[in-house]
């Protein structure tokens, strides 16, 4: 078990290194660099050309690509992700400040998705082919088809701008009522599509399990429907559900970019977008490492949860 975890962690390091390499090449091999964005080449005269050269030398952008790459990777392994070229702040400090906001939003939206999705999926499976099942599945189909940014804007329009029940933007942080009020709209925006996917999957997993012999036996023993569903059926349907929750976490983490843009949520997504538009290499690379490392680790945790859910699953 421990050697499995060690192997997976080592593998995760290589995957994140691969992601980093891809991002590094994508950012460096396309025309233009951050200095071009800061100091326009045209019309600046000799002074600005000199300043641009000085800036390139300061950030190592005048060195061959492989030198820049080796230096960046070596520093990254020592948790030095460089400084933002636009603000001059250390990227790691920015990540420490912004990551909790994105993580909080992602976890809250996963919570919304799980409660809505799993509840609706179980209900649909129990009322198979009935009116409740049809309504739930139609809503789920609509949920996966609705663009997140449109839903976000509509929710903001109705609940923040028209009714004034919830704040339209910003983050307070913490678990106080004000913090939760700020979280409701972005988390719902992000969670609805995932809820729709989870509802469809939970329904199909529950239907598979509900037709198993042990569920029939449990009913034949005279157990209440609640116990049959929760203890016998749901517990055995959890593996595919946990798998999709793990995958959805990654989708929510990157989907946060849209929710953060709409609701001015100060997280990694907005940081990444501003880094991309400003060609701020260290910012983009740092944010992508943080997001993909979280994604890879969550997938590892999901694999480990399997053993807890189903003792037959053994890792060598």
């Amino acid at each position, binding site marked *: 078990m421990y050697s499995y975890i060690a192997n997976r962690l080592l593998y995760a390091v290589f995957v994140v290194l691969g992601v980093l390499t891809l991002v590094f090449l994508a950012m460096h091999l396309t025309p233009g660099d951050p200095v071009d964005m800061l100091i326009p080449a045209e019309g600046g005269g000799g002074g600005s050309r000199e300043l641009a050269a000085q800036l390139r030398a300061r950030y190592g952008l005048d060195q061959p690509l492989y030198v820049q790459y080796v230096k960046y990777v070596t520093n990254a392994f020592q948790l030095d992700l460089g400084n933002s070229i636009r603000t001059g702040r250390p990227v790691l400090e920015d990540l420490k400040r912004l990551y909790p906001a994105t993580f909080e939003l992602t976890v809250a939206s996963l919570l919304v998705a799980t409660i809505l999705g799993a509840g609706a999926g179980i209900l649909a499976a129990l009322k198979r082919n009935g009116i409740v099942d049809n309504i739930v599945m139609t809503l789920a189909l609509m949920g996966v088809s609705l663009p997140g940014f*449109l839903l976000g804007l509509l929710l903001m*329009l109705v609940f923040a701008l028209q009714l004034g029940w919830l704040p339209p933007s910003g983050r307070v942080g913490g678990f106080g009522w004000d913090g939760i009020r700020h979280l409701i709209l972005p988390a719902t925006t992000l969670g609805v599509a995932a809820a729709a996917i989870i509802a469809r999957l939970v329904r*199909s997993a529950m239907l598979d399990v509900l037709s198993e012999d042990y569920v029939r036996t449990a009913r034949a023993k005279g157990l209440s429907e609640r116990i049959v569903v929760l203890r016998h059926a749901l517990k055995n349907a959890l593996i595919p559900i946990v798998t999709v929750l793990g995958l959805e976490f990654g989708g929510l983490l*990157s989907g946060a970019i849209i929710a953060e843009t709409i609701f001015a949520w100060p997280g990694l997504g907005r940081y990444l*977008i501003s880094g991309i538009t400003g060609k701020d290499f260290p910012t983009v690379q740092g944010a*992508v490492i943080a997001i993909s490392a979280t994604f890879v680790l969550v997938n590892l945790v999901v694999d480990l949860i399997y053993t807890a859910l189903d003792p037959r699953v053994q890792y060598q």
Partner: protein
Amino acid sequence: MRRNLRRFFRNPLTWPALVVLLALVVAAVFAPQLATHQPNRQDFLAILQPPSAEHWLGTDELGRDIYTRVLYGARISVTVALLAVGLGGLTGVLIGLFAGFFGGATDNVLMRIIDVLLAFPGILLAILIASTMGAGLTSIIVAVAAYSVPTFARIMRSSVLAVKSREFVEAARAAGSRNFNIMVRHIFLNSFTPVLVYATLLMGSAILTAAALSFLGVGINPPTAEWGAMISAGRSFMRQAPHIILGPGVAIFLTVLSFNILGDALRDTLDPKR
């Protein structure tokens, strides 16, 4: 075949979905004929007007006719859906086919590259590609295609692994067929169903991703009429004129919903075990 078609059309939502998609194609092809105004013509005397006989879906913040721009936006959505899914599908299928068929080192190398691409969650890869290539239709198509390659490759590889040990493949090999022949005629054609189902479902997702890229400002730039960009530009005015985001929003929603309905119906028809 006829039984499959009957099963496909037995789903009560199949026909409405086909009608919506047919309307989308007609709108995309005949946009200049169906439009009531020029898509980029600004009229500062008619800004943010609600729907009326003159402007069926109202006007935007620059007085442009939203109905006309939604029609022109369909061109981009149809192009992205077809080309991005085609390009991503072709690349992913080839990777999955080679990895699954040859196994060993080929499989290992190709699948590790796919693992790296899969470690880019959701829309992140598309954003990176679109932003590094610069705004425009080509970069959106490449970005959405790249985003779909890993899943296509995984689906194709698992189908190939399931098919390649079947008797008819062994028989073809024993009869002296060459690798290329076996791959194309026997394995590819017998592994294609899940790819086709995924491609249909992905059409809707491709349109959503393209619209999201434009919404974030890394897709199609103004003044080109694109549904995501229209919503992005209109969001500052949605309080005074909610219709500004509703026209393109409903167009995206109905199109994606229709592709998802067809994808589900196709899956139920071709893979009834699921």
